[in-house]
């Protein structure tokens, strides 16, 4: 059964030229194996799953899998690196055709991913570098996220201000965002980092709020807070509100959720802008990249999902209240034109 399908897949590889030639003319004709999508099994092997971001990512994966009509299995290791590697083996044993590895540690996933590739399974990885040329890496560009937010901060405040910066070292996306922050500090000598703080103690917003209050009372002349993670920004906003400084401090962040939208839209909110990649879109892109591989096409080794800048003014002008309205009213947020061959069915926009 499996063997015949894989042979079919190899056949499809040979027929690739024909299918891409005919692709534009017959957009509805999907290449094998998606002409019979019910037979295609894919697995999502997760390392991180709790939190709005990961929930939204999963919904994107589910939506795109449904649009393709493939059978999706979700294996969730709940931050257990060893278990995640075992789950890849489990997926191999299940006889899946493709695997999406979502987060994890390079050290534990590198060999597991290689085993899957050796078993003839197509693999893509999101936000974990498995150091394998056969495996496309899906990324949200953290450097671009930070750059968009900081460019907006400079557009709003000029290039000379005293800043508070929220950062916890050792978390890959935050480290990448930190690189951009360093570049900006080097480029604009007027940016003066008066304080750096941050914690991952949960509830994160509450813990960061406590810290930010201390920082604000020690440095009352801070005018810009760069908090490149929305939980950080939420905490800073609570502190700014409690200190009665909403009019004097401006907050720039990365990532977004429904509750962030509400916080940004509060009257007189200090939270001016955030740069975000829609996690649901990243989920869709992950499945699409895998589907291209399965159809014998090449999505490229680095698939980058571009971020969108979302300002308080945009949210107010368009009266956006939640993530769905954000997607509907800022189309660049709802859909990324990444890995969309002509035959690819897209999830219906809600």
């Amino acid at each position, binding site marked *: 059964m499996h063997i015949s399908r894989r042979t079919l897949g190899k056949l499809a590889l040979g027929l690739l030229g024909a299918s891409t030639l005919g692709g534009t003319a017959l957009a509805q004709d999907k290449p094998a194996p998606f002409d019979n999508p019910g037979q295609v099994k894919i697995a999502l092997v997760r390392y991180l799953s*709790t939190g709005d971001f990961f929930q939204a990512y999963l919904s994107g994966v589910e939506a795109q899998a449904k649009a393709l009509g493939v059978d999706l299995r979700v294996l969730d290791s709940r931050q257990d690196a060893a278990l995640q590697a075992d789950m890849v083996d489990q997926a191999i044993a299940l006889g899946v055709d493709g695997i999406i590895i979502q987060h994890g540690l390079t050290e534990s996933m590198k060999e597991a991913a290689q085993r899957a590739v050796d078993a003839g399974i197509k693999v893509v990885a999101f936000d974990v570098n498995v150091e394998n040329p056969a495996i496309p890496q899906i990324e949200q560009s953290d450097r671009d996220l930070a750059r968009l937010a900081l460019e907006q901060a400079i557009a709003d405040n000029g290039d000379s201000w005293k800043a508070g910066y929220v950062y916890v070292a050792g978390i890959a996306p935050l480290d990448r965002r930190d690189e951009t922050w360093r570049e900006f500090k080097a480029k604009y000598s007027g940016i003066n980092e008066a304080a750096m703080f*941050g914690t991952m103690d949960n509830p994160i917003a509450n*813990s960061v709020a*406590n810290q930010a209050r*201390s920082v604000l*009372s*020690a440095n009352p002349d801070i005018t810009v807070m760069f908090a490149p993670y929305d939980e950080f920004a939420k905490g800073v906003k609570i502190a700014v509100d409690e200190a009665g400084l909403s009019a004097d401090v401006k907050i720039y962040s990365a990532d977004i959720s429904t509750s962030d*939208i509400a916080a940004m839209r509060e009257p007189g909110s200090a939270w001016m802008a955030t740069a975000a990649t829609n996690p649901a879109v990243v989920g869709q892109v992950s499945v699409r990249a895998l589907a291209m591989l399965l159809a014998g096409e090449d999505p490229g080794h680095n698939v980058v999902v571009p971020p969108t800048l979302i300002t308080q003014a945009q949210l107010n002008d368009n009266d956006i209240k939640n993530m769905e309205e954000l997607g509907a009213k800022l189309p660049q947020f709802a859909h990324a034109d990444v890995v969309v061959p002509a035959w690819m069915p897209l999830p219906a926009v809600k």
Partner: protein
Amino acid sequence: MASDTTAQAAKPRPVNAMSARDYAIRYGFLALLAGLVIYFGLAADGFASPQSAVFIFQSVAITGILALGVTATLVVGGFDLSIGSVATTAMMASSYVMVVMGGDALMAVAACLAVGVVVGLINGFLIVYMRVPDLLATLGMMFLLVGLQRIPTEGRSIATGMTMPDGSVASGTFSPEFLALGRHRFDLFLPNLLPISVVVLVVLAIVIWFFLEYTRFGRMMYAVGSNERAAQLAGAPVNAYKIWAYVISGVFASIGGILLAARLGRGDIASGNNLLLDSVAAALIGFAVLGAAKPNALGTAVGAVFVGVLLQGLTMMNAPYYTQDFIKGAVLVVALVFTFALSKRGKR
């Protein structure tokens, strides 16, 4: 009152016979606290101000309230690992009542308190009647609640205008009265100085301190904790006292959850593990205050403030978060040394 004799039994030596060592045990920790305050006052700009003082209390209000609750279970010789997740479950419950069900502040608060009472009763039932050891029963409860709080929303955090699993948009909002619990400030000397959470902390600390030290009920809880068998033979309804201790702990944790929800303005998915650890640390540091060498409400409150002073001062001096964890741990170790090594009554 019958408590006169027990009160004397708790102070075996007359006060005037204290040696230097006794002074160190009794006042060492308070002296350390005073020293810290003076040091930060000189070293960190803006530390020595009324706003800063109030803020220290505010930053520890939630963990402090949880710590007072866990003190009650420590008093009866038990332990409650579920307080952190009770707090976050209460936070989710209040958000759910208001945002999804469209309830008002009163309903939300009632729902939270009900969560606390029910969890406390179940914990007590498991420990007393099912004979599950306290650590294990409350550990199980902790995991159960971390999962339970996610079920109604399928793992999403709750915020105004959120999309429900079935695709509809939640219509309710956080009621302004409820948010005021986290954000309103009373005037005290200065306008808008004192947040409600601090008032709640102080009131609860005084109530539980009076309850444990001066009521028959509280003294009996200590008796159950120090020698359960003796208390039973003396005719005390030991099981009832133990269950009550867990109910107190659950209710205090849910009050902490209410204040957390009111401050954040949303229902955040969180395990509450850090809340648990910080509040247990505060309660254990409390053992060392005034050389009590036993769980006590006054010590717990001082312990919470101690941690608050330390974290506020260190953050103002730009110390990174890991040094703060390190110092928090060091303080706890020192406090436990005060309690168990220096104090002759430390052998429990």
